């Protein structure tokens, strides 16, 4: 019994130590003035993290918008309220689905790649050798990736939302025959730029920080073996998905749930 409690205690200590390490890591690498070279490295990572994730995010957004529209229509038509379709599609996309689904896709597509890439650099001693050359890998390798993630995910989320609303329009208006004017005007009457679009973007910013942070830290902190890399990649996806869903609840409660 005492042994179990002790083991629990040790787990707790380990957890807090890891959290502390991760926090320190974030501060050391994300803060600082970028050099010209740093800006270029950031552009490169934006390409890997952002541009290359664009296809999967947009295609998913289109399909989710279409499904929402289809499902929403079958329910709303029972109440004769199919005019509110645009409102339903836009609100559910902007408030919830775009930030959350884009973040989950981002964790799977870009987060795991970041972990594996940095992990491989660690396993092949590239990080150590960089340090020996006198270059801080936190600034050279980690910082551009972190900032690329911070910027890319909100942009991807916006893309997801736009494409999703358009997908909803395709199904609702072109296929199911909702009146086009009411699709847009109902949407415009109910969507508020600050409350809905703004809060959605704030959500995706928070998710961007958390997912990129987890991915990069898992890569930097892993055991440098092939098994370590595969474990860390899995951990990145699991932890960031859980963090995104959990934080989503907290953020939603704060933004829309009347909790100040």
């Amino acid at each position, binding site marked *: 019994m005492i042994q179990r409690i002790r083991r629990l205690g040790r787990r707790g200590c380990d957890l807090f130590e890891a959290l502390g390490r991760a926090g320190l890591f974030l501060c050391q690498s994300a803060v600082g003035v970028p050099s010209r*070279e740093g800006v270029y490295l950031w552009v490169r990572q934006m390409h890997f993290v952002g541009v290359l994730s*664009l296809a999967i995010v947009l295609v998913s957004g289109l399909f989710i918008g279409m499904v929402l529209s289809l499902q929403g229509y079958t329910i709303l038509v029972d109440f004769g*309220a199919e005019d509110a379709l645009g409102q339903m599609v836009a609100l559910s996309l902007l408030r919830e689905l775009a930030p959350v689904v884009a973040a989950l896709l981002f964790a799977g597509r870009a987060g795991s790649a970041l972990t594996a890439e940095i992990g491989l650099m660690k396993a092949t001693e590239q990080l150590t050798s960089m340090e020996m050359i006198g270059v801080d890998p936190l600034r050279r390798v980690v910082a551009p990736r972190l900032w690329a993630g911070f910027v890319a995910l909100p*942009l*991807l989320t*916006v893309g997801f*939302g736009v494409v999703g609303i358009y997908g909803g329009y395709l199904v609702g208006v072109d296929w199911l025959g909702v009146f086009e004017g009411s699709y847009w*005007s109902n949407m415009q009457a109910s*969507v508020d730029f600050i409350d809905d*679009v703004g809060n959605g973007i704030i959500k995706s910013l928070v998710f961007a920080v958390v997912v990129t942070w987890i991915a990069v830290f898992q890569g930097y902190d892993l055991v440098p073996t092939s098994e370590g890399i595969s474990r860390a990649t899995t951990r990145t996806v699991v932890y960031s998905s859980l963090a995104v869903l959990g934080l989503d609840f907290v953020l939603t409660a704060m933004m829309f749930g009347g909790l100040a």
Partner: protein
Amino acid sequence: MKRSKTMELGVGLFMLAGILGVLFLGLRVSGLAMQAPSDTFRLEANFANIGGLKPRARVTMAGVTVGRVAAIELDTDWYDARVVLEIDDELEGHLSKDTTASILTSGLLGEQYVGLSVGGDPETLSDGDALRDTQSALVLEELIQQFVSNMVSD
């Protein structure tokens, strides 16, 4: 370091697309209009009951949107609701003093909005004036109660 022009172009386009996306969400989806906040004027109206009226609800006249609800607060002198309306500037000096405001519902389940209808008074309303003649929101429970008590008294 070798700088790939296509990569830079790709990232640039990506960021541009993101900004355009935000614009789309602002203009097309949330219906933000590019207008300065100065070209509205304010009117006040007291309602006995506002039902489910929310700030930023539409204010219409003959079905045309002419403004928005700016604020809703409790008037502690009369214990009723004071609603501040922001009305398009071009209507200033055209609404008669006896204009009525009523809280209406769009459709059976739709959102609530304020409808204005003009009276015949030659004097007109200007910024900060109050609307005297108001009609509260219909509250379903009260309607039913009235209906039932009428039945009983008959």
